[in-house]
C-alpha cells in the first residue's frame, strides 16, 4: 500500500430502523476493518439495502449510529462511494461523461480529470466506448461504467448493493473476477450486498448473515485467505457456501412454520 492510501474502517453500532410500523433493522453491530470486504447476505426484504444506505449516509437510522474511523487519502474525492444495482448512469451523458460527472467541481484540474477518466476507462476495459451512450451498452458494460465511476473518485469505502445481480450468469462470473482483482489491488474497504453465495465466499473476509425481518445479525463467518488466492471451486469456499445456504434455508423454514401457526 502506498503511504497515501486511505485506511478507513466502518462501524455500525446498535443500528435500528423502521419504516412506519415495519421494523426492518433491529440492533445491528458490525465492524468493517480498513481494507477488508464485508459481505451482507440474508433473505429478501431483511433490510440489507436499508443497512447499506445507513452505512453510506443516505438514510438516517431511527436509532444507533454508523461511524467511520481512520485516514482518508489526500486524493480521495468521495470517501463513501456506492456502486448501484441498477447502475444509475445518466442516460444523457456518454460513458466518459458519466465518469466526468463525479470529478467536475472537484479540485482536480481539467487535465487531471481527463487523465483519471482515461485511466478508469482503461482499467475497466471501456476505452473504446468513451463516447458511447449508456443505452448502447450491454448490462455488463454499464456496470463497468458504474464501477469505473466509483473508482474514479479514489474511494476509501466502496458500498455495493448487488452490483452484479442485473447481469447474466456468464457476464457476472467474468466481472466478479475483475471486481475481486480491483478490490485486492485498490485496498479499499468494501461492504458488499448479494444474494449469490459463491460471490459471498469469493469476496468476503467477513460474511454477515442477517435474519429475516426484523434484520438482526444471525451469524458472521470469516475467511482470511487473500482474495487473489480464491477460486470458486475451492473446497473450503464450497463448504462455506453450503453453511450459508443452510443458515438461510433454516430461516425460511422457520418463517413457513410461523405462517402455518397464524
Amino acid at each position, binding site marked *: 500500500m502506498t503511504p497515501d492510501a486511505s485506511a478507513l474502517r466502518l462501524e455500525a453500532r446498535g443500528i435500528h430502523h423502521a419504516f412506519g410500523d415495519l421494523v426492518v433493522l433491529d440492533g445491528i453491530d458490525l465492524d468493517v476493518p480498513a481494507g477488508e470486504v464485508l459481505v451482507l447476505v440474508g433473505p429478501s426484504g431483511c433490510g440489507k439495502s436499508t443497512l447499506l444506505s445507513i452505512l*453510506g449516509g*443516505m438514510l438516517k437510522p431511527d436509532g444507533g449510529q454508523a461511524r467511520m474511523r481512520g485516514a482518508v487519502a489526500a486524493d480521495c*474525492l*468521495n470517501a*463513501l*462511494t*456506492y456502486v*448501484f444495482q*441498477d447502475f*444509475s448512469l*445518466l*442516460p*444523457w*451523458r456518454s460513458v466518459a461523461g458519466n465518469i466526468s*460527472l*463525479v470529478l*467536475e*467541481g472537484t479540485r482536480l484540474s481539467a487535465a487531471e480529470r481527463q487523465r483519471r477518466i482515461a485511466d478508469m476507462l482503461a482499467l475497466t476495459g471501456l476505452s473504446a466506448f468513451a463516447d458511447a*451512450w*449508456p*443505452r448502447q451498452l450491454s448490462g455488463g458494460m454499464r456496470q463497468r461504467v458504474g464501477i469505473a*465511476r466509483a473508482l474514479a*473518485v479514489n474511494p476509501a469505502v466502496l458500498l455495493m448493493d448487488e452490483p452484479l445481480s442485473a447481469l447474466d450468469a456468464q457476464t457476472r462470473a467474468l466481472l466478479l473476477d475483475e471486481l475481486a482483482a480491483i478490490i485486492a489491488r485498490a485496498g479499499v474497504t468494501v461492504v458488499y450486498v448479494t444474494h449469490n453465495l459463491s460471490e459471498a465466499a469469493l469476496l468476503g473476509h467477513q460474511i454477515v448473515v442477517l435474519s429475516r425481518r426484523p434484520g438482526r445479525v444471525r451469524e458472521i463467518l470469516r475467511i482470511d485467505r487473500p482474495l487473489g488466492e480464491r477460486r470458486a471451486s475451492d473446497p473450503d469456499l464450497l463448504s462455506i457456501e453450503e453453511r450459508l445456504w443452510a443458515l438461510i434455508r433454516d430461516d425460511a423454514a422457520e418463517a413457513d412454520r410461523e405462517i402455518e401457526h397464524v
Partner: protein
Amino acid sequence: MSEHDAPVPFRAGGFLPREHPLAGAATLIALLLLWQAGASLGWFSTAFLSTPIGIARALISLAASGELWVNLAASLQRLAIGWVVGTLGGLAVGVAVGLFTLARSPGMALVSALFPIPKIALVPLFIIWFGIGEGSKDVTLAFGVFFPTVINTMAGIDAVPRALIRMGQSFGLGRWAILRKIVLPGALPAILAGFRITTSTAIILLVAAEMIGAQHGIGAFVLEAGNLYDIDNLMAGIVLLSVIGLCTSWLIGRVERALLGWR
C-alpha cells in the same frame, strides 16, 4: 382430433404501417391540383373559396407592396416576446414547484385556479390594464404560455428518477450541480414536449389578440380582409399562420434532435 400435414402458416403480418414521404407530398400536390382544377372548371365560386393560384398571387403582391413584411414582423415580434417571457417565467416557477416543498402547494393551487381560464377572455382585461399597444398582446401570450410550461416542467422534474438524484448526492455533488446536471437534463424531454403545446397556444392567442385590437399583425390583416370580403388575402393570411406553425414545430424538432440525441 385432426390430422395435419402442411407448412406452418405465417400469422404475424400487418399492423406495421411504414412511412412513404413521397406519398405524403404527392397527396398534398394532388389535392392542390384538384382544388385549382375545381375552381377553373367552375365547380365552386371563388367568391367563397380562393384558389391556390389566387393565394399565391395575393402573397406575391403583399410581399411586393411590403405589407406582408410589416404584418409578419409585428406578429413574429409579439410571438417571440410573449413566448420567451412566458416560457422563462413558467420554467422558473415549474422548477420551484418541482423542487421545493415550500413552493409546491401554493404554486399548484395558483396554477390549478388560473389555468382553466380561457386566456382569450382576458384580452379585453389586459387591454384595460396594459393599453391597446404591444403590452396587452405580449402579456396575453406570456400568460397563455406560462401555465402549460409550469405544468410540463413540474411533471418533467417529477419524472426524473429519484435514484439518479440520490446517486448525485452520494457522490457529493452540490445542489446546484444536481439541478443543472441531473434534474434539468432529466426533465428536458417533457419540457421540450411542452414547447410544442405552448408554441401552438401562442399562435392561437396571437391571432385572437391581434383581432381584438391591433393595427398590424397577421390576425388584424385576416380580420380586415374578411371585413372586405377579400377572400384571396384572407386565405393568404391563414396560409401565413400555418407556415409559422410549421416553422416553429420544425425548429422544435431540430432542437429535440440536437439535445435529445441520447434517447
